[in-house]
């Protein structure tokens, strides 16, 4: 009774290759002037890499719905953390504003 999903080896090597290519693109893109899009590109690639690791190396693609919800919740909570902290810092008054806005 093997209810556990066993991925073919080529999936693991394929994901590894994709992660390597994406790492190279991250470094390459950092040397191209994209203005304010540079961090956006870097983080987008990082999110894609993390998603590949979570889905295939961590087998979340083949996990139960409850596990999938837990995974999504972890990042949802981080989003709440960021939102609350930004609200806090942006309403604290002058000493806590970015130096350029004081």
């Amino acid at each position: 009774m093997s209810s556990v999903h066993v991925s073919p080896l080529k999936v693991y090597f394929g994901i590894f290759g994709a992660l390597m290519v994406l790492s190279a693109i991250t470094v390459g893109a950092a040397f191209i002037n994209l203005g304010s899009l540079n961090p956006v590109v870097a983080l987008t690639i990082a999110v894609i890499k993390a998603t590949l690791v979570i889905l295939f190396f961590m087998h979340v693609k083949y996990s139960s719905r409850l596990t999938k919800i837990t995974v999504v919740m972890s990042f949802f909570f981080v989003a709440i953390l960021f939102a609350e902290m930004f609200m806090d810092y942006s309403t604290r008054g002058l000493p806590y504003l970015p130096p350029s806005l004081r």
Partner: protein
Amino acid sequence: MSDAHVHAAAHPLADGHGLAADHGHAHHPALQHHFETMSQQREAGVLGMWVFLLTEVLFFGGLFFAYTLYRSWYFDAFAAASKSIEILPGLINTVVLIASSLTMALSVRASQTNQRKATVNWLLATIVLGTVFLGIKVYEYADKFAHHHVPGASFQFAHVPGPGEAHEEPAAVGHVTTMGPDELERTTQLFFSLYFVMTGLHALHMIVGIVILFIITWMAHKGRFDSEWHAPVEMTGLYWHFVDIVWIFLFPLLYLVERHN
């Protein structure tokens, strides 16, 4: 073993007496008494591990927020400080750590398919790659000490012209113009504080991971795992991949700020 499972599965509604009669031979030795089946036990384990990783995501999330806030406040300092870091060791470490995630995933797969020798070997490969990562990290930290880039009493930061720039005065170099040397030193120290806390916490996770990997490797060597029960390998894998994901974000955020200038 599979016979026992067929037997157990044939009586899903067995009452207390039936279960008592089954005890001692009906199930996998690793099945804890509070679970009905191995797959239920496995499911509970995976879920529990992910709840732990959720707390870890939030743990690092606080640091990523601190980074985001101070980067937005002192962007010029973050750019200057990030440019003082060598990319190559960071890139090599990225490759090494993703490779270690691959070997970890392969060892989980080997344990799923009852390949004891392969499980042990892939675990050993993961330990080696993790140790290489930490070794390169030691080199990088030593470099920071040598350049006085460690926050504290002896911290110093002056704009060092990159290979493309002539030996101009700092005042002539890009963004840094708005900052005096004192403010540059004060604000770059923030970047390096975050650098050491974030990579240090990450490295601590790796040290813990390597210790766990040694234990798991020993258990695998002793033949403690089979395709039905290899939860420790699987859970260690989830932990190790999480540590890999943290690095996937740390690398561009710490090493690659404003490299195009």
